[in-house]
């Protein structure tokens, strides 16, 4: 098992290096000269020279890259070219906001997707199954930012039930946090619930055909025990992997949801940075998201190895 995990970790290393090169190269292709933006109206040649010095723009590109990676490894992702704040500080500020949203969405997606998938599999071919599949398909077809707009329209504007926007930290005011989280989490988690439901359903169907399920039934076990204990435990393996993978995607999906509900998180940070042509921030955010994503993929594979007996012992 350890060899397998070690090999998987080793494979992730060149991926991280490539991603860093890619992110670095991408930012250097950005249109507009950010130095001219910072230098302001006068464009004093001396000031421009000094700024280029500060941001190391006079060095050859490979030198810039190595310096950048060296700093990034020490947790220094450069500075915002707008406000001069360190990018790492911005990220540390915004990350909890997005993680709170992502966790709430994941809880929501699992709470709906798992039972719906199990039920659809157990009642295969019945109205329950078709209804669940139809809801899942529409969940995949509705763009989540539009769903968000519609929820604001009906729940906030018409019925005045929930706040339309904002962010409340959970540990400061749990009730306020939940109120502001219900709609964004529903919007962001809805699509995931559909994916989880579809996978749970097919995993359950696969497992229910297995011999040991027939044996369990033949022993005269209660159907509920067969489903909950014997089938579910095995069907959950691929779903665990999938959920870990999806969690990484949540961070990206948050971009739109945060935009719709004006939540000051990671997604809003990157969109604002793109519009401000803020080199440093875009670079830092994309790199962080990508590494977070690679880490979640790694975690998913490791979890898969740990929960699969065949791989655990082999």
């Amino acid at each position, binding site marked *: 098992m350890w060899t397998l995990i070690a090999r998987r970790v080793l494979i992730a290393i060149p991926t991280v290096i*490539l991603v860093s090169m*890619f992110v670095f190269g991408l930012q250097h292709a950005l249109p507009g000269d950010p130095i001219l933006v910072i230098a302001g109206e006068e464009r004093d040649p001396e000031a421009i020279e000094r700024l280029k010095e500060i941001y190391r723009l006079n060095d050859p590109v490979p030198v810039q890259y190595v310096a950048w990676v060296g700093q990034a490894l020490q947790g220094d992702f450069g500075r915002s070219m707008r406000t001069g704040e360190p990018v790492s500080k911005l990220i540390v500020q915004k990350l909890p906001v997005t993680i709170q949203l992502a966790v709430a969405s994941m809880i929501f997606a699992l709470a709906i997707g798992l039972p719906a998938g199990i039920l659809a599999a157990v009642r295969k071919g019945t109205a329950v199954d078709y209804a669940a599949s139809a809801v899942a398909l529409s969940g995949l077809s509705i763009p989540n*930012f539009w769903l968000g707009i519609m929820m604001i*329209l009906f729940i906030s504007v018409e019925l005045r039930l929930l706040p339309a926007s904002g962010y409340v930290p959970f540990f400061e005011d749990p009730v306020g946090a939940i109120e502001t989280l219900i709609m964004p989490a529903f919007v962001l988690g809805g699509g995931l619930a559909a994916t989880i439901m579809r996978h749970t359903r097919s995993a359950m169907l696969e497992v229910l055909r297995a011999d040991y399920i027939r044996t369990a039934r033949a022993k005269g076990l209660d159907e509920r025990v067969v489903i909950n204990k014997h089938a579910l435990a095995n069907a959950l393996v691929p779903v665990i992997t999938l959920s870990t993978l999806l969690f990484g*995607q949540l961070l*990206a999906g948050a*971009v*739109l949801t945060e935009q719709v509900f004006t939540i000051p998180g990671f997604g809003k940070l990157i969109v604002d940075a*793109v519009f401000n042509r803020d080199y440093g921030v875009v670079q830092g955010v*994309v790199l962080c998201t990508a590494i977070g994503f690679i880490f979640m993929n790694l975690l998913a594979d490791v979890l898969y190895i740990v929960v699969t007996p065949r791989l655990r012992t082999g």
Partner: protein
Amino acid sequence: MTDAQTAAPTADAAVRAAEALPPRRNRVLAKLLANRMALIGGGIVLTFVLLAVFAPLIAPYDPIKTNFLAIRRPPSELYWLGTDELGRDILSRLLHGARASLAAGVFSVFISVAIGVPVGLIAGWAGGWVDAIISRITDALLACPFLILAIAFAAVLGPSLTNAMIAIGLSAVPIFVRLARGQVIAVRNEDFVEGARAVGLPGPVILARHVAPNVLPPILVQATLTIAEAIIAEASLSFLGLGQQPPSPSWGSMLNAAKNFLDQAPWMSLFPGIAICLVVLGFNLLGDGLRDALDPKEN
């Protein structure tokens, strides 16, 4: 009766049965036509394609011309779906916007297939270090979430519909590289490939004539489903202001404007969203139907 006599009619029957069996392509088509969901999906897609093509003829008003005497009118006999904050007819903008959405979906997937499939074929066929390098780059690209990647590309290329298509297309390339590579590896050691190699056909010929056709069905399915995703991605980028630029209509940019008028003009945000849902659902249904029809296990 002798053995020969009994054997003859059975062999005959087998030949007749084989002749009666339609060629594979027709069977796939027949299966697709028998699938009601796929038909509905195809119908939706076809309808929107026709609406987009004939938009200038059907649209009752100019989609760009502003009219300050008819600002934010609710749906009425005059303006079936109402007007927006600049007095433009929403129905006309929706019809013209269908062009942006469908074009974005089709062109971006065309880009991803045109780059991803050949690269994946080469990686799977060549193996060794070529495969290793291509796979690592694909992993790295897949490591950046689709939308973040598209936003980053759109930021680099500058905001416009064309650039959004390129951004979405490039972001989806790794999906097709992986799929094509996996398919080639599955087919590479099949008997018919061995046979082609045994008669001395050169590699590129085997790849193009014997491997590629077997790789195509799953790619067709994936392409259809990716069009659905690309349409949502284009709407998302336009919603963020990184796609279609005003005043040209696109469903995403219409929603971007609409979200500022939820109180005063809810119809502005209702209809573009419904249009996106319908088209995306159409492509999803069609893709699912194609997958069932092309599934060799069920044929």
